[in-house]
């Protein structure tokens, strides 16, 4: 390996560790007394444009599987297992929206069907490919929350 390659590897590793150190891990999410999470999981603001993509993507948030949202009217099918998210930012503060994306069971009890998107509370027999992983990354959670806060 050439020295330049070592250098780029070292930079890449530094960047990786920088991301993971800054992110709050799923087990350390600070829920406050009213179950809100008021700080960003990444220490950075989310990007609503990215959040809009994560929201619709079937392999990421796939929020439309269960929820309708007028802002996603370019997508043909909207689910109805959960409530419509129109106006959700007027109903819930940002800290609660963050909790609902991270782990809705903290608010709606264990009985909710809504998956925890940044939680290690998962079902039995998690497929090998997904073991030890959350559905969304911390940044994707922040992006979705930033997007949801536009639902006034």
């Amino acid at each position: 390996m050439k020295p330049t390659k070592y250098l780029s590897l070292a930079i890449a590793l530094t960047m990786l560790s920088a991301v993971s150190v800054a992110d709050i891990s799923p087990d350390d999410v600070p829920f406050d007394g009213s179950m809100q999470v008021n700080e960003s999981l990444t220490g950075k603001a989310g990007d609503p444009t990215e959040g809009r993509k994560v929201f619709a993507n079937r392999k990421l948030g796939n929020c439309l599987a269960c929820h309708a949202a007028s802002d996603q009217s370019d997508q043909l099918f909207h689910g109805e297992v959960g409530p419509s998210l129109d106006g959700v930012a007027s109903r819930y503060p940002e800290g609660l929206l963050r909790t609902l994306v991270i782990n809705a069971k903290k608010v709606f009890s264990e009985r909710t069907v809504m998956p925890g998107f940044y939680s290690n509370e998962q079902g039995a027999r998690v497929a090998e490919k997904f073991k030890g992983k959350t559905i969304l990354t911390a940044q994707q959670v922040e992006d979705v929350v930033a997007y949801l806060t536009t639902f006034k």
Partner: protein
Amino acid sequence: MQIKSASRLVGRALLLPTLALSFSSVAFAGPDENQLIIEGETISTDTKAAAGNPLPHLYSGWRFRSIETQALQADDFENPAFTAVDTGEELWNTVDGSAGKSCSSCHNDAAESMAGVRAKMPSWSDSLGKPHTMETQINACREEQMGAEKWKWEAQDMLAMTAYVGLQSRGMPVALDLEKGEMQDWHDKGEDLYNTRVGQLNLSCANCHGGNFGKMIRADHLSQGQTNGFPVYRLKWGGLGSIHRRFKGCMDNIRATPYKRGSDEFIALEVYTANRGQGLSVETPSVRN
């Protein structure tokens, strides 16, 4: 092909994109009102739930499908599963194995001997010490009576035979006997599995098919997950598939490691789901999306 009130439903189907965009939660809710009539025979697609059933009323998955998919099942000439049924009939009469027998050597005319069999499956087997499914019963016949090699769970010949044998019970109510042997234990084990949350998405069968049937999950209309039409011709598969293949598909979707086809877990789950549809008419071979 006869589907009662079809024209009204086509009218509703044309409205779907508009309704989807207006986010109506009422428009899709619940099963439709269509009636399944095949070759002049009405097949009931709903029934009152037996006492103890967690569902208030039972609906065949047919009632949750589009008018186009429903039409495929309402006409045996349109139903793509019937090529496999024809294969099944041929196999029924074909000698295979060291004993020089075919199915018909012992069972004669399937229309008589197999009528009602599918409706009772899975059913307790003393010799096996566990429930027989259609697949294991067919293989037991092949190995023990015919001296033939057993078929794989999802083999084309197996699907053709389960479709052909199942068809002989079409229209008859699902009627498992949980009193025999240890059927109740298998049922209860299946019930536990049905209610156990699995996978990264952390969902149980009941989460979707118990509390939320009738609702749209994105483009799919959630049914009660009834098994009365299996093996089913799924348009998505482009072919026939077993109950256990469908279980596996659901577990993959929620990012869980599925049990194996023919495993005790899936047999138990089949006992539970079949009994949960007690009273629904056998629709084998059904057509779904």
